C-alpha cells in the first residue's frame, strides 16, 4: 500500500506516524507542503503538530497551502485521508470535514492518555477492532473541543459517522471522561463516504508495545485490509 504523509512547517508528528507506516511495510513518502503534485497514494496522512505555528486559527493557514488542493482532489477521487490532531483541524478548515474544533472547555492544553470507544467498525479505518471496543490513546491539544450544529450532529449520529467517542473504562459515555468538552463526547468523525477520518487522539503514539500498548496499531492494520 502506498501512503503519503504531508509535512507542513510546524508539523511535529510526521516522523512518528511515518515510523508506524514503515514498520507495517507501507510504501511511504513524505510530502513537503510547497509541492504541487502528490504521488498516487492509497492513504494520505495529515499529521499532528502546529502547522504554520497555528497563530491564526489552528489549521487555517495549512488549509490554504499548495498541497492541500491536491489532497482535496485525491479525497474526491476516493483516496483514504487520515487527519490526526492538527490534521483533523486542517481537514475541518479546508472543508473536507464539517463542524468546528473549539478551545478545550477548561482553556488549557491537555496532554494525557484517554479512553475512546469504537462505535463503528464497518469501514476502512476500524475493521480490525470489535464494535464497542475501548482503546487507550493519547491526546495532546489546545483546540479539540468538537462542535457542530444540530442538523449535522443528527446526520453524524444517524449515519454511523462518529467512529470514536471519549468513554470510561467500562465504555460509558459521560462528562467526566470527556477531556475537552466535545459535543456528544466526539473524538473523531467521518465524511459521508467514510473515506476521510479526522480524530483528535494519536493512534501512532499507541503503536509500540514497548512504550505503551498497541491500541492504535489496529487502525493502521485496518487500512491495510
Amino acid at each position, binding site marked *: 500500500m502506498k501512503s503519503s504523509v504531508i509535512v507542513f*512547517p*510546524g508539523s*511535529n*508528528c510526521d*516522523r*512518528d506516524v511515518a*515510523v508506524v507506516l514503515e514498520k507495517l511495510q507501507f510504501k511511504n513518502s513524505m510530502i*513537503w507542503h*510547497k509541492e504541487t503534485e502528490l504521488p498516487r497514494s492509497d492513504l494520505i496522512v495529515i499529521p*499532528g*503538530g*502546529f502547522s*504554520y*505555528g*497555528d*497563530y491564526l486559527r489552528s489549521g487555517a493557514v495549512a488549509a490554504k497551502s499548495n498541497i492541500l488542493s491536491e489532497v482535496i482532489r485525491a479525497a474526491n477521487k476516493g483516496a483514504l485521508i487520515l487527519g490526526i490532531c492538527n490534521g483533523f483541524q486542517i481537514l475541518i478548515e479546508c472543508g473536507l470535514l464539517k463542524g468546528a474544533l473549539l478551545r478545550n472547555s477548561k482553556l*488549557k*492544553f*491537555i*496532554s*494525557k492518555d484517554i479512553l475512546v470507544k469504537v462505535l463503528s467498525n464497518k469501514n476502512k479505518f476500524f475493521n480490525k477492532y470489535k464494535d464497542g471496543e475501548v482503546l487507550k490513546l*493519547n491526546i*495532546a491539544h489546545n483546540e479539540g473541543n468538537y462542535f457542530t450544529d444540530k442538523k449535522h450532529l443528527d446526520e453524524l449520529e444517524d449515519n454511523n459517522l462518529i467512529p470514536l467517542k471519549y468513554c470510561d473504562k467500562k465504555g460509558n459515555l459521560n462528562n467526566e471522561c470527556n477531556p475537552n468538552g466535545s459535543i456528544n463526547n466526539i473524538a473523531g468523525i467521518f465524511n459521508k463516504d467514510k473515506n476521510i477520518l479526522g480524530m483528535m487522539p494519536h493512534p*501512532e*503514539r499507541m503503536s*509500540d508495545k*514497548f*512504550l*505503551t500498548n498497541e491500541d492504535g496499531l489496529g487502525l493502521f492494520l485496518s487500512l491495510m485490509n
Partner: protein
Amino acid sequence: MVITKDQINSHGLKVEEYKKIKELLGREANLLELGIFSAMWNEHCSYKSSKIHLKKLPTKNEIVIQGPGENAGVIDIGDDDAIVFKIESHNHPSFIEPYQGAATGVGGILRDVFTMGARPIALMNSIHFGSPDIKITQNLLNGVVSGIGGYGNSVGIPTVGGETKFNSTYNENILVNAMAIGHANKNKIFYSKAKGINKQVVYVGSKTGRDGIHGATMASSEFDDKSDEKKPTVQVGDPFTEKLLLEACLELMKDNSIISIQDMGAAGLTSSSVEMASKGKLGIELNLNKIPCRERNMTPYEMMLSESQERMLIILDDEKEKEAKKIFQKWDLDFVVIGKTTDSNSLVLNYDNKIVADIPISALSDKAPMYDRKWNKSKISKKKIKIKDIKKIRIEDALIKILSSPNHSNKNWITNQYDQVVMCDTVQKSGGDSAVIRIHNKNKAIAISVDSSANYCKADPKTGGKQIVCENWRNLISVGAKPLAITNCLNFGNPEKTNVMGEFVECVEGIKEACEFLNFPVVSGNVSFYNETNSKSIFPTPVIGGIGLLDNLNNIMSIKTKNPGNLIIVIGKTIGHLNQSAFLKENFSICEGPPPEVNFVNEKNNGLAVLKLIKEKIALSVHDISSGGMLVSLSEMSISSGLGLKIYKPKKMASALEYFFGEDQGRYLIEISKNNLNRIEKFMKQNKIFFEVVAEVQNDIFEMEKIFSLKINDLHNFNNQWYNNYNATN
C-alpha cells in the same frame, strides 16, 4: 563624547569597571561600545563572580566529549551516539512576564543543544515559586507552566518532567530553570570556535526587533518595587520559527559547510559574534546595515543589544553560501551574510559606511573582570530536634498532611499541560524517579532527573551541595540507569554579599566532592546570581540535571509495585534524621537544624548494589527515599500501582515517627519476591550493605499493623487534590 556616571550605572557597570574599559580601549567608549561592554561584562555572560570557583568542579572523564565552555556539554553513550545537554535559568524574565519568560527559557536552551548538531529529544525543568498563599503565586504558576508547555509542545519536543516547589523564599524571585537534552552522532558535533580569515559570517533565523534589549543586564541585577517597569526587557518567543530553525540547521549540518555556529542567546548578536571570534582568536567585522530588522529605524545600539529570539550566527566555509541559502529559503527563514572573520582581533562594526564600534575581542572576553569576592563560612545549626519536644501526632495524620501538601502533591495538573510523548520515544514519563527516553531506533535509553534541596542547602550549603548530587545519582539508579554526567544551574542571591557568596562557594565545594567521588562530572551549566528583591536573597538553590544510560532497555525499572505477596526491603541504614525534614516542615512549620549527613561510601555501595539487583531481575520495583522519608516513598509506590502495602511495625514504636519520616540519605526501597529473600541476604552480607524488610505488597489497603489502615483510593485522593483545588479558586 564623555560617558557620564549615570550612563555607567544604567548599564549595570561600576565606575571602576568603566575605568578599566577606558584603559583597554585607550580612549573613552562611545555609547554603543559601552552597551557592548555592559552586555559582555555582566554577571550572566562573564561569570565574573563565579568563574574562579567553578574551575574546581570535575569536568572530564572517559565519557566526556565536551565539558563546560561550549553551548552545551557532550557525552559519549557508545555506538557513536552522543548526548548533548544543558540546564539554564530564566528566573528574572519569568518573574516579570511568566509566560514569555518561561517560554523563551525553553527556546534558548533548545537552541544551545541543536546548535551543537543534536536533535533535541527531551525537555525537563525545575521551577520554584513563592508561598501558594500570596496572590501572585497562582498567576506565576499558571503563566510559567503554560509558557513551558506552549513552547515545547509546539516545537514538538516532549517535556518529560522535573520538579515544582513552593517556598516563601521565592515570593519575589521565582526560579525557572529549563534543561534540554539532544542526541547527536558523536563524530558530527558542531562548535562555536571560528576558524580561518575572510570567512563569511551569516545571520539566520528570525528578524531582530527591539525586544529584550539589555535582558542579560536586567538578569544580573536585583529587583526592587519598580521591577514591573522592566517588562520591555523580556523577549517574546516564537516556537514556530524555532522549529523551522531547528530543522534548517540540522539539514545544513548534514554536510560539512559549517565552520562554526553559535546561537544568539543572552546579549544576542554581541555575545555570539564575540564568543566565536574569541574562541578562534580572530577578529570579526559586521555590516549592521545588513541585519534583518523587524522594525524601522533601529539603531546599531538596539541591533547589537536586542535579545530577539530564534536567531543564529554561522561561519560558513568558502563557496557554501548558495547551498546553505537554499536550505534556509526552503524553511522561509532569513539568511544574510552580515560580515566576515578578520585577523584584526577586534570586533569592528560598520553602519552607514562608518565604523561605529571598534573593540579588541580580548577586552570583551579574557580581560573581562574576574572577582575573587569575599565570602563567609555559613553558620551551621547543631540544634537537634527530638520527637519528644514536639506535639503528639498520629503517623497517618502526618503522612496525609505531607502527601496533600503543595510540595508533595501529585503534579498531574502541571504535566498534563506538557506533551510528554511526542517523538514516540518516551519510555517513562514524569512521576517516577527519572524520565526515560529511548534512543530512536535502538534498544537503549537515557534517564534524566532534575533535583534540588534548597532547605538543606540553606541549613548547610556544603552538605546540601553533596546531597543534591547524590539524590540525582540515586534517582538515575532507581530506573536502572548508570549515572554518567550532570549539568547544573546555580541559583543564588547577590554575590557582593559575603554570606551569599559563602553559600555559593560551599555549595560548589559540596557538589565538587560528590561529583569527584561518584565519577559524575559536570559538563555544562549556568549561574544565576542576584535572585534578590529589596535586599532579600533567596535560599541557595543549586539545581542538578543528571543523565544516566540504560544500555539495555529491558532493564528499565519503575516505582510501581507489581504483585501482592512480594516484599519491600529498604537498603541503607535508617537513623531517623528529622531536622529539615518534610515531616517537621509540613506538620509543625519547623525548619531548623542541620540537614542529614551524606556518606559517600555508603551512597556509592548502595547505589551500585541496587543497579546490580535490577540487572539480575531480583528488584521488581525501586524507589529512592528522599523528601518525606520512608513512609512517603512507600505510599508513592502504592499510589503508583494501586496496590496496597502491609507495613511492619518497627521494633521500637517509640521512635516510629523518626523511623518512618527521617530523611537519612543513601536509601532505596526495593520490591522482591519472597523466594529471593535468602539470596538477597547473602548478597547484602557479601557487599556489606545494611537492609531490612519493611513491608509486604497486598491488595487495596495501605496499612500498618494495629496502627492505621487506609484505602488506596483515599491515599490517591489525598495526593491528587491540591493543585486542582488551588487552581479552581481565583
